[in-house]
């Protein structure tokens, strides 16, 4: 009855069930969290350029959520940041450039009057669900009527 194998088996099974129980408690501890937060975004100088995109074999492209003639909904990520556990979760930036280029699929940015900037985030818990939260608060801006003439501005 009490062979090495059966004892190993018992220890293994017990360890597994304790770990499963703890993981479930981890899941419970974050499942009911409300991850909402307030967001205030603004834009400074907005310029739009018409430049060739060499990474994609397309002709020319204009450089957040907006609507163009042929695409109803367009979303582009322009900035992101990873906040680890223990980091300061309050983001306060005064002058920030976009982290990624704001390309359009076609030529839909020039004189586009309906661009909405929002901030949303994923929460990765120790174990459990992966909620995606939309920040409360957004900023709407317009792109100018003309392409910026200066190449390096």
């Amino acid at each position, binding site marked *: 009855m009490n062979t090495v194998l059966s004892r190993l088996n018992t220890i293994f099974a017990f360890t597994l069930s304790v770990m499963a129980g703890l993981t479930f408690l981890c899941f419970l501890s974050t499942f009911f969290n409300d991850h909402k937060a307030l967001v205030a975004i603004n834009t400074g100088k907005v310029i739009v350029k018409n430049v060739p995109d060499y990474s994609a074999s397309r002709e020319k492209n204009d450089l957040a959520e907006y609507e163009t003639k*042929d695409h109803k909904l367009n979303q582009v990520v322009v900035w992101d940041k990873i906040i680890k556990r223990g980091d300061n979760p309050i983001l306060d930036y005064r002058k920030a450039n976009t982290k990624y280029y704001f390309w359009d699929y076609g030529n839909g940015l020039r004189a586009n009057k309906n661009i909405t900037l929002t901030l*949303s985030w*994923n929460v*990765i818990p120790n174990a459990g669900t*992966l909620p995606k939260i939309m920040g409360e608060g957004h900023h709407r801006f317009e792109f100018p009527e003309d392409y910026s003439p200066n190449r390096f501005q």
Partner: protein
Amino acid sequence: MGMFDFDFLDDVRRMNKRQLYYQALNFGMIVSSALMIWKGLMVVTGSESPIVVVLSGSMEPAFYRGDLLFLTNYREEPIRAGEIVVFKIEGREIPIVHRVLKVHEKENGTVKFLTKGDNNSVDDRGLYAPGQLWLEKKEVVGRARGFVPYVGIVTILMNDYPKFKYAILACLGAFVLIHRE
């Protein structure tokens, strides 16, 4: 009675035919219920592979190698920027877990999107099939909804060391067949 007494084999010797059949059927039951659970999950989640193991470090620090992801892929749920999707590219066996960077959706619902791994400095166009610039809905395996750390490390070990896989399978099979209730 030594330490390495193989007295568990005595169980087999003592079994009669009826019990052997019972054990074999029992084994079949285990295999088929595992299959049923998997297929049932596929129906409930709408994803062709509802549970995936993260195989690369391209989403660190969110997901590490060996983390287990639970996916859903409901037709009516649109793909939006910032979501973590799992997609499979033509000509590549292994599904990739990355975050959506850009979405362009037409009025009729056809959607083109671009992805990027959190830990990669550039987007995924280099990973796509040659000449492919955008992903489409048909390439999506699922959206990440739940997360359990480390559990999938067994799968990774099995993939990296096939001998380990056969040893585990043999042990489990032998245990189920030999063990007498």
